[in-house]
């Protein structure tokens, strides 16, 4: 059996195609949007709302919301997820998962507004709401990923004299990486989409275009806002896929 097939080659090309096509599509749509902005038949109000400087500022705010929330989610949910798979804490994992489930099940807009009443109408309330909203996929996938590691591998590692910490770092986490990353990607996309709601509590972002479009009945502004959010989400999703592609340990299918 020395000539075992190496299927990763075939899988690799397919995955690669996806990785190349997605950004190409994003760039194309973005280019079309820019051309339409320049040449399209826009009213004066629309042109004023959609001026490049403001668009960049909104996008910047949106990205700031996204990255700060994501960083907090990752820094909090991954260690928590790991901790909840350790023996002394397994008992409380049900409770924590239920809480996280609650965070995600609650309507995002309700969460944002409620938190704003409590914490004030600011950037940071929006961040807190996004964190609560997006923590679940990361937390759950971290736990599922680690629990999914074959118990015999853990036993075999312990049997060789690895400490439980080194088993975690060298066996459990590397093997859980694919599952964890897909949870992280889901969370990031959720955050980009939901950051739109930050506008309701005055935290800015691309949601501003959408609310402006709705309030002043400017459908073109509304669509521009929605389009930019969608492109941003696709871009983040693509980045996530690239990381998944490279961070997946070799030797795993």
């Amino acid at each position, binding site marked *: *059996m*020395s000539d*075992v097939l*190496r299927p990763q080659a075939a899988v690799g090309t397919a995955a690669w195609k996806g990785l190349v096509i997605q950004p190409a599509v994003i760039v194309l749509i973005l280019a079309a949007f820019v051309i339409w902005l320049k040449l399209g038949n826009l009213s004066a109000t629309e042109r004023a709302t959609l001026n490049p400087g403001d668009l960049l500022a909104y996008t910047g705010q949106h990205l700031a919301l996204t990255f700060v929330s994501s960083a907090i989610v990752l820094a909090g949910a991954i260690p928590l997820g790991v901790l909840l798979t350790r023996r002394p804490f397994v008992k409380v994992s049900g409770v924590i998962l239920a809480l996280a489930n609650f965070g995600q099940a609650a309507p995002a807009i309700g969460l944002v507004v409620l938190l704003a009443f409590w914490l004030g109408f600011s950037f940071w309330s929006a961040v807190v709401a996004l964190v609560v909203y997006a923590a679940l996929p990361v937390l759950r996938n971290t736990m599922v990923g680690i629990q999914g590691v074959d118990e*015999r*591998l853990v*036993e*075999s*590692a*312990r*049997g*060789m*004299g*690895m*400490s439980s910490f*080194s088993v975690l770092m060298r*066996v459990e986490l*590397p*093997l859980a990486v694919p599952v964890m990353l897909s949870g992280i990607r889901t969370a990031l996309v959720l955050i980009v989409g939901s950051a739109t709601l930050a506008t309701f509590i005055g935290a800015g972002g691309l949601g501003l275009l959408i609310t402006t479009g709705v309030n002043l009945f400017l459908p073109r502004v509304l669509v521009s806002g929605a389009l930019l959010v969608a492109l941003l989400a696709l871009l983040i999703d693509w980045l996530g896929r690239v990381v998944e592609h490279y961070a997946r*340990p*070799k*030797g*795993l*299918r």
Partner: protein
Amino acid sequence: MSKNSSTATGTSVSSRILLDAVTKHYPGQSKPAVDGITLEIPAGKIVMLVGPSGCGKTTTLKMINRLIEPTEGRITLGDEDVTNIDGDQLRRRMGYVIQAGGLFPHMTVAANIAIVPKMLGWSKEKIKNRVDELLELVSLEPAMYRDRYPRELSGGQQQRVGVARALAADPPVLLMDEPFGAVDPITRQRLQDELLRIQEEVQKTIVFVTHDFDEAVKLGDWIVVFSEGAHIVQYDTPERILNEPASSFVEDFIGAGAGLKQLTLNRVRDVELAEAVTGSPGEMAQDVLARVKEAGDGHAVILDENRRPLSWPSRRQLSRLETIPATPDAAIPLVTQGSTLSDALDTMLVSSAGAALVTDRRRSFVGVITVEVVMEAITRSRKASAMANDNDSPVGTNTGTIEVQGGTT
């Protein structure tokens, strides 16, 4: 299989294992999983722990490297009491092999083998050499396999790497927990032969858990038969367990065909082999045929330049040939000197020749074994059986409780 060797205490004390009145009691269970077992594992021997599932044999094994902490009792490795030393440190001094090898799928073969040496702080150079040495030992070409990932290996190859990994830091003790349970019978037979060959070289103290009695007879210098609660029913050599089972429990466990199982105790190297006419590729087939006829044989063995058998043509096949071809015939019945007679018999029965070619450790040809030789060996071993004497038997008892199943050593 050495019934005559001086056991344990004298030589290489460092790796004798002694379980002293060890008990494992799980909270919430009325009966202990392992009940006051006292068991001596002689140095440099293979001791097989067999018994029905749930009898506590695996628990007993895992208490030796303290993957399971004993509730009571002491464990000694050599002269050192290891009951209370750091478990991780202890486990680095004992090889551990589980079913299917337990290889880490995200590490290459070399990285898997290097785990314990790395933890022990060996130099890169030393680790690299050791990895290659071990791959050679388990018959995997280092250049070809060291950079592969486990999923690119067959089950049997993974198991070999598992054994290599356990031997990496040259531990005095090897613990094996049903390692060959998940491979097909032919691969298992090969892995067993391989283990015996490796053991000849490395002389480790091996504790091997299995539920397969045939495997126990084939591999074991000593066999411990357990009943529930890790009660030792019999601790003896395979010969004596087959010939004088201590109780009806052991008899049932041996199962039918104890006579045939005797064949597992004898190796091909213990019997006399027949000679054969040999030839080499490129020779005129006619010349070889003439030699075959002269010797009164039915076949000729074709060997390559390293004396490895290539093919085994009959007179008729020879008469059809012009010159002898160099093409190897994958279907020739081959056994090694280390194979058991039982495996040899299996091999010859499926071959058309009613015989098999025997090779040595370097796979070069040494002779032919026939069914008649095997039959003779059965008769002989019946007469010679039950000659082992009691004095060198290692200790194995349960303390503090009634011995439900009766007699031990």
